């Protein structure tokens, strides 16, 4: 009892990346472009980021989300919300559930733009009791700003990257005092002005080289146990803890499709044209690299639209690809497949340690392809980039390309 339908392009996920892809495709007249999103409202994560800084004009998240939606709808893409993709029926056919019933949608090309989420407490293996008052930033923002729920009185924020400071703002708006920001790193990873503002104006202490090792409390959280790198421990009384950052791609659909995943990003492995190893299946946005800012993923969407359009017109799909691998302390690189006809412009990387102007050495089968020194330091939880002008030297029949520190 599934209604069966056919469209030209199905985009899964109506966040900035999916909407930009759909807008680009619909504008280029490739036929019927449909975007489905499981949430009741389109726009993705920016919908619950009430703070500014989105897009070139620095609008708030909801404004930015609205603009992305309007752009996609304005070009003629069909946007359907409250529609969950629940399974694959064939390599380019998905099953969906919505209040209108069950459907089976087949497309000439499928674009996965399923985004990312923060790892919650359990996935971070923080032991202790299981009290109420434990949040991720995503849940906190929705609870405080969209649902106006009571949060608590005194919070510890785990993480000191840009999103952690966003959590501070949300807590402040909700009237929650912040006992401390806790980071396992030796320094925060946000813009200096932002960190300074939190420390001086809002008097939020930053505890570095420290991890939350225990949650305490019955019913409601009563405190967290901390351990410093040097072994010292402390107890901080609080009724709220927010686990920020530590983003992972929402890769369920990619994985259920049997697509090749990248072990670093944990998202589907793609080339510079956003092609996965499944013919006709593209992936774009933070499902590839959790997490980049909305503007960056929207730009990817525009590029992906061009790649999908090309595929729809020429039908070409690379049969071979070379994998890209990073060595610690590098965490991942994206894109992470190289194909012969690849228009790769630049690569995004992440490090797990602070690196003062790292030198990257790119090799294949022991042969050095490229050596380059970054112009800026590399900071954990923040992107740094390397240009793709060396990809022409890659042997497409060779082994994996390795990116390591020089």
């Amino acid at each position, binding site marked *: 009892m599934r209604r069966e339908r056919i469209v030209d392009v199905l985009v899964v996920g109506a966040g900035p990346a999916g909407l930009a892809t759909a807008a680009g495709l619909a504008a280029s007249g490739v036929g019927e472009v449909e975007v489905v999103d499981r949430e009741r409202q389109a726009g993705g994560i920016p919908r619950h980021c009430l703070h500014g800084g989105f897009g070139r004009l620095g609008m708030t998240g909801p404004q930015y989300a609205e603009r992305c939606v309007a752009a996609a709808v304005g070009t003629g893409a069909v946007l359907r919300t409250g529609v969950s993709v629940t399974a694959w029926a064939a390599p380019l056919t998905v099953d969906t559930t*919505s209040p209108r019933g*069950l459907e089976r949608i087949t497309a000439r090309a499928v674009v996965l733009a399923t985004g990312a989420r*923060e790892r919650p407490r*359990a996935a971070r*293996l923080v032991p202790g009791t299981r009290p109420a008052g434990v*949040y991720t930033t995503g*849940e906190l923002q929705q609870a405080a700003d969209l649902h106006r*729920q009571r949060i608590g009185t005194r919070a510890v924020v785990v993480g000191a990257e840009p999103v952690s400071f966003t959590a501070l703002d949300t807590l402040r708006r909700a009237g929650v005092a912040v006992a401390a920001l806790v980071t396992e790193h030796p320094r925060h990873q946000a813009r200096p002005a932002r960190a300074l503002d939190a420390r001086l104006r809002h008097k939020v202490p930053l505890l570095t080289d420290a991890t939350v090792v*225990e949650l305490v409390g019955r019913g409601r959280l009563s405190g967290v146990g901390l351990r410093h790198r040097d072994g010292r421990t402390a107890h901080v009384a609080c009724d709220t803890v927010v686990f920020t950052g530590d983003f992972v791609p929402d890769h369920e659909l990619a994985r259920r499709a049997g697509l090749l995943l990248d072990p670093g990003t944990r998202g589907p492995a793609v080339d510079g044209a956003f092609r996965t190893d499944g013919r006709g299946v593209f992936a774009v946005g933070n499902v590839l690299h959790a997490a980049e800012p909305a503007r960056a993923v929207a730009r990817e969407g525009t590029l992906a639209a061009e790649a999908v359009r090309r595929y729809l017109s020429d039908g070409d799909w690379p049969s071979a690809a070379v994998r890209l691998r990073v060595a610690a302390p590098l965490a991942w690189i994206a894109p992470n497949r190289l194909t012969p006809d690849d228009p790769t412009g630049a690569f995004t990387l992440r490090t797990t340690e602070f690196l003062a102007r790292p030198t990257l050495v790119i090799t294949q089968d022991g042969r050095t392809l490229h050596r380059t020194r970054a112009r800026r330091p590399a900071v954990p939880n923040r992107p740094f980039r390397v240009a793709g002008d060396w990809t022409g030297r890659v042997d497409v029949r060779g082994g994996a390309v390795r990116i390591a520190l020089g």
Partner: protein
Amino acid sequence: MAVTRRGVPPDVAYDVTVIGAGVVGTAVARELARHVGLRVALVEAADDVGEGTSKANTAILHTGFDAVPGSLESRLVREGQRLLTAYAAESGIPVEPVGALLVAWDGEQLAALPGLLEKAERNGYPAARLLGPAEVRAREPHLGPGALGALDVPGESVICPWTTTLAYATQAVRSGVDLLLNCRVEAVSQAGESHLLSTSRGPLRTRYLVNAAGLHADTVDRLLGHDAFTVTPRRGQLIVYDKLARDLVRHILLPVPTALGKGVLVAPTVYGNVLLGPTAEELDDKTATGTTAEGIAALREKGHRILPELHDEEITAVYAGLRAATDQDDYRISAHKEQRYVTVGGIRSTGLTASLAIAAHVTELLAGTGLDLPEPHDPEPVRMPNIGEAFPRPYQRADLIAADPAYGEIVCHCERVTRGEIRDALAAAVPPGSPDGLRRRTRARGGRCQGFYCGAEVRELYERGAEMGTG
């Protein structure tokens, strides 16, 4: 309303009061409710049914193949397995008959298998058999290296412990049992032919008393002047891996019990996850349900040896439960005729499987102490919402969605829980007492994102539903 969470207990003389609304207490209450005309109370210290040992265990429907032959536990598990299998089918409790393999990883364990096979036969379970290493590998292709053989126990199943307890409670309440939650029994005194219970909600009068207080059964027993056993909480920490790991394991992979203890299992869950655990830690604190870094690390190390690919899978939940261990290797069920009192103590991890048989046994004991039991009637069958993966869930059912679009509106995306299911749980005969109770009824907020997407909305639905309810 037959379910209350506050206010003084009704001023009636109950015929029987059951202390403890875990899987055993609810089963006893349900069994008593079959005898129409009995006035039965079920009192529970927590704010929901199944809040103690019953909610945090390994969720296995045992065959009882490895019980001590001739023990009460052996008999009740064997009977209970048959009863619960039938009851689950009738009530829609999720069960998956995946079978178990006791995998031997060293010579000592391999040598123990024939003895276990023989024990299974003595326990009236003839279906077990020994497997060689090649067959083990063929049955479980993702197993780590070094498995030397296994005992195949095809009758073992995984079950939903939450729905089981809830089904019993629902049927009991619908049959007229008063369920008093947030109602801790603090003292017991005698007033003529009655027990007078002092509870945290006020006095409660009852002629007969059943102690199914689980971890606190020894405390309640002492309130009645007995000092027969001590419950030592044995903590079991468990890790739940994401559903994307489910394809890695096909059977319940049981450890081979040796002199060093019962060990750690890897098992599928009826919700489509993979469970790893438990640890076994003897404690004295009956509230110590926290997890520890050491416990988690030890489990992961063991789990990754059994199933190396678990290493790359995301973890959805980590929790700990306490088993009600006593100093004896058997259940401690005894009747005290002169006190019109039955103690149901020492019910360990097999209690879920044995629950219906324990209930029948306890009811017989009550009759033996003089309780006049009206003729039993089969209660109105109960049909529980399906939260397991073996049968279609509401989001997969065109018929349900066509009749009510709320079943097509997915609120919790990781677990695919619909607004319709949440609404139904909040309006049920035994509504949840907390968002966690709602999770155990629907799985909402129990998935890999732990509320990143749906947490605020689920809490809002819960709070709105709780306001409308009478709880």
